[in-house]
């Protein structure tokens, strides 16, 4: 391969000669491009170019432009004419009009601004969607025959029954960990028996429902988004609307009702599993017998603790179902959008669950429960 080069024609005045192999391979893959020699040129003779590819044609035409030579003053080999013409036509239509990019700080501010706006509009949309769902729920209460029972049961199985082993196992383990942790701290005071109080308090009031809600936020909210999102991207939702069916009534309500029923049930399971975890640790690793554990538990367990935990379950169910379904309905077309929305659903629902739980903790403390 001979390198491509440009040279002043010694025989003819003002004529630029292009010679060699004008392909990217011959230019060391674009690292060595032919340089324009000094001088004034009125025409270019490129008939001596042995081989040409579109990159070579681009560079040749570029040189032509910077030498101030018109297209008509370029002479090429007939076999290269079509290629040069095509590239020249593409270059003409290619007027560079890139929008000026934003600078560093402006870009940061731009990102912060748009993120804030997204957050606010997400919240407003969620509240709007809550209203829409409540209307649909009320309509269904007036005419219960319109509720899709099969769908409700299906989602109860998917979101509730199938999650049972996971919820039980994780709660059991967290219960055991809390008992261990409590024992480590309380041993210093010789008050190991309060491990029972700690586990009971923690699981009845907070962890039973919080663990369940966080697990379902990851497991169920994402599933809702992916299911509804896929339907949205295949235009199934639009098809429903044109057939006079209400997607909220058909898709959102069954999922919401299923979760409203199953989240409290799972919460109770989580409470029992957590207490069992505490029990196993107390019996095997600490000097607290099973009898003592149960006695202590009965002594301090009051209905209000149980209610404080359980009352949050339907609220979390609402949050998880609504966020999951709404994010699904926000999907636009592409598979990438489904992925983005799913992530957003999980993040939003977990965040909201924890925020609401914290607010509830303050509230119950204030009212003295």
């Amino acid at each position: 391969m001979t390198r491509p080069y440009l040279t002043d024609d010694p025989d003819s005045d003002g004529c630029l000669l292009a010679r060699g192999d004008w392909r990217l391979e011959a230019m060391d893959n674009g690292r060595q491009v032919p340089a324009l020699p000094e001088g004034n040129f009125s025409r270019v003779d490129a008939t001596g170019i042995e081989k040409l590819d579109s990159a070579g044609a681009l560079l040749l035409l570029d040189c032509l432009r910077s030498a101030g030579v018109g297209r008509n003053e370029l002479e090429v080999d007939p076999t290269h004419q079509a290629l040069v013409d095509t590239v020249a036509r593409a270059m003409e239509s290619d007027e560079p009009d890139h929008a000026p990019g934003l600078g560093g700080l402006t870009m940061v501010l731009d990102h912060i601004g748009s993120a804030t706006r997204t957050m606010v509009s997400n919240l407003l949309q969620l509240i709007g969607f809550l209203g829409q769902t409540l209307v649909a729920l009320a309509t269904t209460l007036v005419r219960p025959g319109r509720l899709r029972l099969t769908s409700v049961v299906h989602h109860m199985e998917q979101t509730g029954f199938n999650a049972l082993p996971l919820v039980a196992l994780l709660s059991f383990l967290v219960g055991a960990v809390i008992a261990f942790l409590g024992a480590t701290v309380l041993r210093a005071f010789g008050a190991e028996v309060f491990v029972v109080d700690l586990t009971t308090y923690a699981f009845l009031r907070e962890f039973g429902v919080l663990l369940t809600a966080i697990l379902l936020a990851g497991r169920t909210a994402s599933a809702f988004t992916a299911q509804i999102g896929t339907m949205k991207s295949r235009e199934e939702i639009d098809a429903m609307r044109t057939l006079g069916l209400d997607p909220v009534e058909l898709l959102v309500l069954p999922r919401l009702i299923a979760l409203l029923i199953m989240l409290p049930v799972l919460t109770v399971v989580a409470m029992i599993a957590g207490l069992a975890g505490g029990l196993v640790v107390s019996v095997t690793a600490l000097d607290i017998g099973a009898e003592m554990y149960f006695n202590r538990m009965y002594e301090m367990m009051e209905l209000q603790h149980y209610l404080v935990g359980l009352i949050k379950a339907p609220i979390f169910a609402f949050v998880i179902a609504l966020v999951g379904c709404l994010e699904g309905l926000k999907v636009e077309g592409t598979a990438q959008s489904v992925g983005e929305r799913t992530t957003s659903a999980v993040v939003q629902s977990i965040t909201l669950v924890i925020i609401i739980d914290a607010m509830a903790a303050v509230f119950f403390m204030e009212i003295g429960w």
Partner: protein
Amino acid sequence: MNEQTQDANREDGNDASAPVIRIRGLANRFGSLVVHENLDLDVHRGEILGLVGGSGTGKSVLMRTILGLRQAQAGTIELFGQATGAGHRQQLERRTGVLFQDGALFSSLTVRENVEVPFKTHMPGMGGKLRGQLADLKISMAGLPSHAGDKLPSELSGGMRKRAGLARALAIDPELLFLDEPTAGLDPIGAAAFDELLQTLSRALGLTVFLITHDLDTLYAICDRVGVLAESRVLTIGPLPEVEQHEHEWVQQYFHGPRARAAQAGQQRSQD
């Protein structure tokens, strides 16, 4: 003129008259389902070969097998006179370009970045400015407006995505271009424009094109030869007038149905 371009442009130690793709005795099976059996196919330098066939006759499977995305159960495939195998992959990738059905653009990259990908992989030393210039050139050659380069694939229409896919497939001036239903899903005007674009580019760049299509208009407008895939093999291959005469039932129905007649008539009108 086309032949001349090739002879002048390509040498690479290969015989110019040897087929670019040479397939012998190819067999593809999915479990008990036989897709290809004893399939032979030659694609010559500089031609546009159209491949047609009913649904499920394995057009896309054949393309995927040639590209090495799928391992055939039997048979040999030679590209540019070399048997395809692990050793030659890099070189073959550099000499072939592929346009998948929906463009298959990388969704996280802008169109320009998509077109720059082949330069980055095959010509790592190239300067950013030249790469950007070349990418813009290809985008423009594929018939896209220059502002399309900054867009993400999801912001483009189906037809524009195909053009962007073509720009990427053409990026490093491949000798052999694979196209999987390039005009499917385009409106007739867009499809005709795409046909014309393909023809112009293949003439200008001396391309060999392997084209899978259902589009009768494309067949009549730009294909030099047409191959019919049926009964697990290439049933017949040749210039359209010859292929039309084949007495196989599917061929008869395909080329003598009302749509084929309309396409034929349209082609004659445009030639007059």
